[in-house]
Structures are given as structure tokens and as C-alpha cells.
């Protein structure tokens, strides 16, 4: 047993270091795909009864009309939820969340934000997240959980009425669901922009190294 472990360690140290393991990459891109389907079909559903004084342009919605949007939304939700559950379980079981995302200290976040804004943030070691990344990644996981729970609260306000009540009732859950979507879209804009600014981080999420 110990011989195997030693040779494994030896192998990884000689090969290029794996930055993102295969399971993270698979779940990441599955999540990205499911998220895009959920958001675009969600905009279609929003347009049928807008919460605010605007609607989403038809060209960026999915499903063609309300029934189509709903079909996509309630199909992609399974992909999103199953994928998300596997991610949460793996994140805890492998210790990835603890190792990668903790600790998050206010001082660390402040100094890394300053460094980022002045262009002095180091990207030499992509296996370690800086404090801004830690905060954003941990935050978006919480938002991801919230958007699923508020979605379930809207879908089943009778069967899951205690969950719906937690969001301030059916109408409250609609607003929570909307603002979580807005947070995810904002995250995606920043996330994609930064990944393009540091292309080797994008490469690591595709081929692992």
C-alpha cells in the first residue's frame, strides 16, 4: 500500500502539477451549461409576468414562449440540482472546500482586493486561490444553494410551504429567486472576464494543468 502511495507522489511531482482535478472540471462545465439553460429559460418565464418594469429581449430567452421556457427550466433543473449536489458532496468529502476556500479573513480580502485593483495580484500558483477568489467562490456556492431552494419554494408553495414561508411566502420567494439570478449573472460576467485576463486559469479548468 505504502509503495503505491510513494510512487504516486513521485509521479505527480515529476509530471506537471494538476491544478483542477477531472471531477472539478466535469462538474464545472456541466454546471455552466445547466446554468445558462436555467437563466435563459428563466428569463422567458420572467417575461410572462415581470416583477419589474422591464422584460428580457426575446432573442436571449429560451423556449420560444412560456410553455417552452417552463419545459426547459424544469428539465435543466435536474441537471443543475444533481450536478450541484455531487459538487457539494465531493467538495466536503475530498476536503476541497476546506483546503481551497478557507480561511477567508477580512484583512486578506481587503489586501487582495487592493492588489487586484492595482494589478499587483500574483497568479503564479493557480492551485492557491487569493482571498477575493475565496470570497467570490464561497459566496456563489451559497447563492447557488439559495437559488435552488427559492426555486423549489416557488414550484411547490403548498407541498414545501415551510420552505416557502422561510422566503417570506410565494411572492417573497419570487424576488429572492430573481436576485439570486442577478447575482449569478453578475458573477459570471466578472468570472469570465477574469478567466480571459488570466488565460492559464481557463486552460487549467479545461485540461487540468
Amino acid at each position, binding site marked *: 500500500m505504502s509503495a503505491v502511495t510513494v510512487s504516486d507522489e513521485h509521479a505527480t511531482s515529476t509530471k506537471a502539477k494538476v491544478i483542477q482535478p477531472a471531477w472539478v472540471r466535469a462538474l464545472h462545465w456541466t454546471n455552466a451549461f445547466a446554468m445558462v439553460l436555467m437563466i435563459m429559460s428563466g428569463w422567458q418565464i420572467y417575461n410572462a409576468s415581470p416583477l419589474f418594469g422591464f422584460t428580457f429581449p426575446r432573442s436571449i430567452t429560451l423556449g420560444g414562449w412560456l410553455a417552452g421556457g417552463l419545459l426547459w427550466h424544469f428539465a435543466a433543473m435536474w441537471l443543475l440540482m444533481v450536478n450541484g449536489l455531487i459538487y457539494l458532496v465531493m467538495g466536503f468529502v475530498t476536503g476541497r472546500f476546506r483546503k481551497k476556500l478557507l480561511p477567508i479573513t477580512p484583512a486578506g480580502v481587503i489586501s487582495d482586493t487592493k492588489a487586484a485593483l492595482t494589478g499587483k495580484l500574483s497568479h503564479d500558483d493557480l492551485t492557491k486561490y487569493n482571498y477575493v477568489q475565496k470570497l467570490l467562490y464561497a459566496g456563489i456556492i451559497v447563492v447557488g444553494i439559495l437559488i435552488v431552494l427559492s426555486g423549489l419554494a416557488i414550484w411547490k408553495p403548498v407541498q414545501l*410551504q415551510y420552505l416557502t414561508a422561510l422566503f417570506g411566502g410565494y411572492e417573497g420567494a419570487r424576488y429572492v429567486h430573481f436576485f439570486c439570478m442577478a447575482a449569478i449573472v453578475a458573477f459570471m460576467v466578472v468570472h469570465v472576464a477574469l478567466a480571459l485576463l488570466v488565460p492559464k486559469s481557463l486552460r487549467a479548468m479545461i485540461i487540468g494543468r
Partner: protein
Amino acid sequence: MGRMRKLLIPGVDKTLLVRDAVKSMPDLTRRRFISGGASLGALTLLTGCDVTDSFSAEEMLKQVSKFNDGVQALMFNPNAMAPTFPESAITKPFPFNAYYDLDEAPEVDGKTWKLEVRGLVENKKTWTLDELYQLPQVKQVTRHICVEGWSAIGSWTGTPLRDFLKLVGADTRAKYVWFQCADKDGYNSPLDMPSALHAQTQMTFKFGDEILPRAYGFPMKIRVPTKLGFKNPKYVLSMEVTNDYKGGFWEDQGYNSFSGS
């Protein structure tokens, strides 16, 4: 386009509006309009690709929707009551909502109207409104949730459907109670038996303590607070207890059939 924009009513979904307009077209025009206008159809025309791909996406969505029917039936708890509200919470005015304007809503004569009861029932008699008014009634103040997303709280009074089903000797092991209505184009909708037997599912004769007005489905609507609004048929003409899935007005167009809350 500018003129078109002026004609649109704020807050009204353009797609739904077009959809409604399409419905008033004769069948052939309608089919052509849909096949020409639907983006998937247009895409296949443009690319010259075989339509199998778009059909398989549609087929996949249909299958998942059926799967979701099953999941929702499993989630359905017959003892879970829809939350009730005080009278002060009632939405005023309660919205009129249909695929037609209020002036096109059915005008049913309460004196000649009869409820037909068909299918797997012992007593297939038709019921007059006066006869139905003799049955014990209960009131509920619950939230009506539309498939479009909006919701409104209303007060409905009537006879629990399960009491009526018992009275007519319905076979409650049957799968559905299928309702047919007087709306133009013939509205109909199936209700699964567990939902039909839910304590709050009601044959409604009154809204806000007044005889059900035309806007809300005179003379009778089926109030199902554990379902989305379109599963609450208005202007009901007949009910059939059946094991066959007979489809529904919106269900046939792609809306999820169970659509439980």
C-alpha cells in the same frame, strides 16, 4: 413597428398575445403560422438540416415533463393543506384571466344550465344549479397562482368535490376527473384523482360571498388550491370520471399536466 409597439399593453407578454391571436386563426393558417414562426422550425428551414434534431429536443422535453408529473404525484401529500389567509388579505380587484377578453367570456344561463356527470359513476344524472346549491358549502381564502408567475388571494365558497364524488358514487380508484367547459374553443382539463379528493378541492359557486360572477366562471368553477390556475377550470359543463388521459386545453400545448403547487 412603432405602431405595433403602441398597440401592445404594458405588462402583457407579447408572446402570449401572439399565441392567443394564433388561436383565433383557422386551423390551416394557424399551422402554417406556427411552423413558419417557431424559431426551431425556421432554423431547420434556413440550415436545410433534417428536422429530427429539433424534434428530439422537443421529445426529450416532453419525456422530462412526464417524468415531472410522476415526481409531483409522489410529492403530493393529501394531508398538506394550502395556506389560508384572513379576508383582509384578499386581492382587490381579483384579476380576470383567460385566453380571451372578458366580453368574450361565456354567458351561461343559470336557469337552463345543467352539470353533466359521466364516466365511472353510479349515478349519471345531470344536476341543475338549484340542486347543486342545496349541497353543503364551505369557504376558503387561498392563493391562486398562475403559471405565468403572478398570484392573487381570493375567497371561494362551494361544495368539496370529494363530497360530491361520493354522492354520485364515483369510482375514486379511477385516475382522473376530466372537466369540460363553456369557454370558446372548448376549454377542458384533467385532474388527477388524489388532487380531486383533496379536502380543499371545491366545486365553487361563490366568490367573495357573492354568486360567482361571469368573470370568475359562473355558474361553477373547480377551485384546486394545490394546482396552478389553469388547472382550475371555469364555466364547467360536465365532469367525467375516467381512467383515460384525455388531455387538456393548455396541457396539450406543452404546459406540464400535473402542475401542482
